[in-house]
């Protein structure tokens, strides 16, 4: 009975989905400007295009306060993620924060048994961890120059902690992680407030005047990336601990 019901629901869902797909197809073949499956949109002065051309500052604009802020980060993606839309990025970090907080709330507490780690894992884990930390560190330090950045770096760093957990080694304290998380989070906003005090605008990249391609360039972008990396790493590690402590 239950199987039949779920089968029925699945069939209905499938029908609905195929109808939606058909609809989207129909939308895509509609004439005029709009959603196209294969599109060769001729470049117009869309916001997105101006981002790609790195030309968002309007000559007449009163926001024309910094001549170089636009140019300092070599990596387009980075400058969008950590400069133009830094606020969104911060909020995404907080989404992660909330998710992990909710984890302990929603996941029911029941005891699980984990196996004793093998000797090979136990012995090799420090080397792996150092490797992970190095890669992670490199990624967020060079986030503004090459692909990478705070989020993946944080994830990689947290895998170091995961390996430690799996190998049964005491690496960092749960409490320490929380402190790191909170300090990183508060610092992000602290810098935002600092920018408010210095420039009168929130989250403005107020360290300017450096040369593209240098390690120390892009103003506050590397700083934010570092903070984000720490925060993400601490948050993701927290999940592992959440599970680990339940065992």
């Amino acid at each position: 009975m239950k199987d039949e019901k779920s089968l029925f629901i699945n069939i209905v869902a499938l029908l609905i989905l195929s109808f939606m797909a058909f609809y989207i197809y129909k939308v895509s073949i509609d004439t005029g400007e709009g959603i196209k499956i294969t599109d060769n949109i001729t470049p117009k002065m869309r916001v997105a295009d101006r981002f790609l051309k790195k030309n968002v500052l309007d000559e007449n604009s009163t926001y024309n306060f910094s001549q170089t802020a636009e140019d300092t980060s070599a990596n387009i993606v980075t400058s969008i993620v950590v400069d133009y839309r830094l606020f969104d990025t911060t909020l995404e970090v907080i989404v992660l924060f909330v998710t992990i907080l909710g984890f302990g709330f929603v996941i029911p507490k029941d005891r699980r048994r984990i196996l004793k780690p093998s000797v090979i894992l136990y012995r090799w884990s420090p080397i792996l961890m150092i490797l992970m930390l190095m890669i992670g560190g490199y990624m967020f330090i060079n986030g503004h120059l090459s692909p990478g950045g705070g989020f993946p770096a944080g994830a990689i760093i947290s895998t170091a902690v995961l390996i430690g957990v799996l190998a049964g080694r005491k690496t960092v304290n749960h409490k320490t992680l929380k402190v790191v998380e909170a300090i990183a989070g508060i610092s992000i906003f602290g810098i935002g407030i600092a920018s408010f005090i210095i420039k009168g605008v929130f989250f403005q990249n107020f360290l300017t005047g450096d040369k593209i391609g240098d390690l120390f360039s892009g103003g506050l972008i590397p700083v934010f990336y570092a903070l984000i990396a720490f925060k993400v790493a601490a948050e993701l590690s927290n999940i592992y601990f959440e599970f680990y402590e339940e065992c």
Partner: protein
Amino acid sequence: MNSIVFLVVIPLIAAFLSLFLGNLNKITMYIVTLFNLIFSISVFMSGKIPFNVAIGGWKAPFGINFVVTDITIYFLLLVNIAALMSITMVKDIKEYQFYSFYFVLLAATNGMVLTGDMFNFYLFTELSTFAIAGLVAYKRDRLSTGAALKFLILSSTASLFSLSSIGLIYKTLGTLNFADIALKLTKLNQASYNLILILFLASMLVELKIFPFNLWVVKSYEGSITSVNMFTHGMLGTAGIYGAIRILLIVFPNMYNTNISKVLVILSVFTVLIGEIGALKEKNLVKVLAFSSMAQMGIFMFGIALGSFESIKGSLYIVVSNYLAKLVMFIVTKQYSRAVDSKNYIDMKGLGRKYPILAISFTIAALSLMGMPFFAGFWGKFSIVISALSLDRLSTLGIAIILIASVIEGVYYLRISHTFFVEKDVNSVNISRVYSIIPFALALLILVVGIYPNSIEQMLFNVIDEIKNAPNKYINIILSLK
């Protein structure tokens, strides 16, 4: 007024701090909420409205911006007042997670109201739904965990839809700013416009509790504690209403040229019917309130979907009445159910005779929700009825059904009020009379608005003026066009 960002930043910092504060969390909660309230009042008083704040210093269509216009500031006040009311109900909560969630919710709902950017709005919505889900799960029993998971599943589905909508917008228009989208959206062909609108609407309707999207409502109200119910109603609900007004009416005003608005009319009529009929046999007072808030949102959506000047004004009256009334009702429910240790209203017999102020406040709130004259809800109902009857046949039929359905609402609400006043000795029960103050004050407010609507008429007029008469005003503020 760049400092408006503090409304979001301070609660978020408090959210991080809450991990360590322990017992101080409760005081921090009051301080932060009061800060938000006082700050928004000072913005309201400052006379600098409207203004636009660029975050990170990037000009409006490029960076993220916060916009404060008349609508924004009113909803900001509503959200923060609701926050203050709700936290007075918080008692003996030790878990720091609760406070972290609250701070994030406060930041997110303030942000939802303030933001002028589509993706930013999406993120704030995400944050607020996650925070609410966490808060709903606070009791950690089977019921509340299930409710939280269901809410999460539905809101994740919704966010999937809104994210695809935002993606399509960015793909086709190359911009994320509300004003910029509104300006450029008219150039799209009808099919694409519809698809974007439908995807976004589907995600909005989950929070607005419109029928096929609202299966989370009753369970999550039932599974959570009163203060969380008040958060869901007063903060998330109000911010969601703001989103509906802002986005549907300013970004997608062309909706009224398509039949999607007709579908919205039908869906909202169904929501009203289902909400009212569902509550008819319900004994659990909290679930009654859940069903009723569903119905109220149906009426609100009906007015919005009609889209005329008067119907939108009616919807705004409904918002005011529902906002005030539900706060009153949740507080009264909390006090009474704690006194008799049951949420079944049959068990609350006779409490109204011993604590009449609470029961009278509840009755006033109920009458306002029923749209009785001399209470705030009446003017909303009246406006919506008049505008619906002068529109097409569908809306005439719709309003007739809604009015008949509100008969059912009257029956179940007044039955509850009657139960409060039944002659019965309840000497063993004890409720501190301090708790009567807030509900009574709110109930008086309902009466004032009901008897003398001029008290808020000007505000509502500003709001509708901004929506209907001068949508370009908003666009000009943001894009600083002349």
